[in-house]
């Protein structure tokens, strides 16, 4: 039983990180109807900002950790907005395929620029938050796992509040529903889209730091696998749907962990993706997504 609970906790803390990254994919898709493949590399940049910032603050303090988290989120928000401004904005009226290919280009650009600046060798991420282990019954709970889950939950609540309780959130939903009508109603689409990228990238940065806290070996290609998994999580939950992304991330993280802990550990990715295919066979729009016919 304690093994089951321990695996559940391991799975939830992994899933919470997938969920944070998945939110970025889903928000951009909701507004612009395209997959921002550079998102997983913004996640990597977030971890590296954390790495360098972590050297400036004293190790193992709560305020230090939060400061690092904050700076990385702001840094990546700016990066995300810059990417949107320079790479995607000109292509807004172009076919989706062009934007998609540009996104892959931006992704590769970030990865290999990262290798030039940071070097390809993995680095040890500093312990920026205090580390303690708690034991409840047979279950060991690491403070980092708690921080991952707590930060993820707080950020998801904040995101939900922004989207449903603020003017900019209303504008985001308006653009998502119908961009042309939103312009006619006086919404400045450029500002809204820029804000969406900033918000999504800030969440990716938080995801990057939390990931690095739990798995403290970071390198410029670290975003590739988590990014792919988060993308799957976003689709699993229903792309464009915020609670769906969170749910998808948690499901994927938990399934992966349970498979890893079983004798089929070699097949953990295969099984995770098989589940995706099965769910999409029965619910093509994802768990919480609504099926809409695209007009071509």
């Amino acid at each position: 039983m304690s093994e089951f609970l321990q695996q559940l906790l391991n799975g939830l803390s992994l899933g919470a990180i997938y969920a944070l990254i998945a939110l970025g994919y889903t928000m951009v898709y909701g507004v612009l109807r395209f997959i921002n493949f550079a998102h997983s590399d913004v996640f990597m940049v977030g971890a590296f900002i954390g790495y360098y910032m972590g050297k400036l603050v004293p190790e193992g303090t709560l305020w230090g950790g939060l400061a690092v988290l904050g700076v990385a989120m702001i840094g990546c928000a700016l990066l995300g907005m810059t990417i949107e401004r320079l790479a995607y904005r000109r292509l807004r009226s172009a076919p989706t395929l062009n934007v998609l290919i540009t996104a892959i280009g931006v992704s590769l650009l970030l990865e290999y620029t990262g290798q030039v600046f940071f070097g390809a060798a993995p680095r040890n991420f500093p312990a920026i938050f205090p580390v303690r282990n708690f034991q409840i019954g047979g279950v060991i709970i690491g403070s980092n796992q708690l921080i991952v889950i707590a930060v993820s939950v707080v950020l998801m609540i904040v995101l939900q509040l922004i989207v449903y309780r603020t003017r900019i959130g209303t504008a985001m939903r308006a653009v998502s529903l119908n961009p042309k009508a939103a312009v006619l109603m006086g919404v400045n689409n450029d500002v809204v889209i820029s804000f969406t990228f900033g918000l999504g990238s800030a969440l990716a940065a938080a995801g990057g730091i939390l990931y690095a806290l739990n798995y403290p070996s970071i390198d410029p290609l670290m975003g590739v696998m988590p990014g792919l998994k988060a993308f799957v999580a976003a689709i699993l939950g229903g792309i464009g749907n915020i609670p769906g992304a969170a749910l998808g991330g948690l499901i994927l993280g938990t399934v992966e962990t349970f498979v890893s802990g079983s004798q089929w550990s070699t097949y953990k990715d295969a099984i995770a993706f098989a589940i995706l295919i099965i769910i999409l066979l029965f619910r093509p729009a994802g768990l919480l997504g609504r099926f809409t016919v695209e007009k071509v």
Partner: protein
Amino acid sequence: MRFGPFQATRSLIRCALFFTPLALSLAATTVEPIRVGQFASLTGKEASFGVAAHQGVVLAVEELNARGGVLGRPVEFLVEDIESKAGESATVVKKLIARDKVVAILGGNASTNSLEAAPICQAAHVPMIAISSTNPRVTAMGTYIFRACFIDPFQGAVLAKFARETLHAKHVGLLTSVSAPYSVGLSKVFRERFTAAGGEIAAEQKYTEGDKDFRAQLTALKALQPDAIAATGYYTEAALICQQARALGIDVPIFGGDGWEAPQLLELGGKAVEGTYYSTHYSAESPAPEVQAFIRKFRARYDGQVPDAVAALGYDAMMLLADAMQRAGTTDGPRVRDALAATKDFPGVTGRTTIDAQRNTSKPAIILTVRDGRVQFVTAMRP
């Protein structure tokens, strides 16, 4: 090439330092140099092995050239970076042989890389000495393929004996990297020898190279309450495994093979790798005069850095090759091959080396432990 700016400058300086005297001697004598090629991961996640091996080879080449070269000809050394990526080894070895016309190939740290390069060297009849590839299949690829290190069955047997007799372990949990032939081979032999010695494998858990989350596998192992855990993969994953195991409250000894041998094990692992053990090819604490002389030369050449086992093997590989060429009296591939195969009691830094009929070497393994943030000698062992 994906070098960091720092590494790029460093290797430029290194090249300049190395080629200047060579160019001068060439101009003076116009003797055609002997070209030797190496392939190594100078960047990426196995960079520690590649860089160390390269440093060892460079030291040997410089020493040989200072002595007047081999067969009266200077040695020209070329290195290609395989970036820790699958598929690169085959490409760069083809280039070294076809375009640079090297007479021998050194290298292969990870067995995967040597397995890629071996058929190409075999087909071209160019002798290859794998530096730290311990998977037995490497030298089975052909008659031109040799190695400077011991093989996994030997190392697996040593680890089994160590676990059984020194750690007094009875139930051992096994963690294998299924995408690394090195790890798969080592785990297989360990399992056979450990069960033959009266031990029991509690369970074998698997992961793939590049994985970062081992909590699931470790939680499953913890439930079985093993006396020790064998992690047969490489150092990046080993460091993370130790960290996550300690965080999950697993306090039994963790041990592995020579894939752990890297300064990064301590950097990435920190306090979590304290009290862990691994087997390797050589210890800098050995009092043997050839070891101490090697360490002195290495420290003088590389700003006081202490050489690790892979650097020592790189040095030995180059010296083995030079010795064979000297005995063959030529750089002709088939004759160098025959001379290499006939190597007997060569006084290497990693022990007296004899090449057997399978083109493998035999010498005792060294067990090391991490204590007080430093790697320390435990014992030398034969299975």
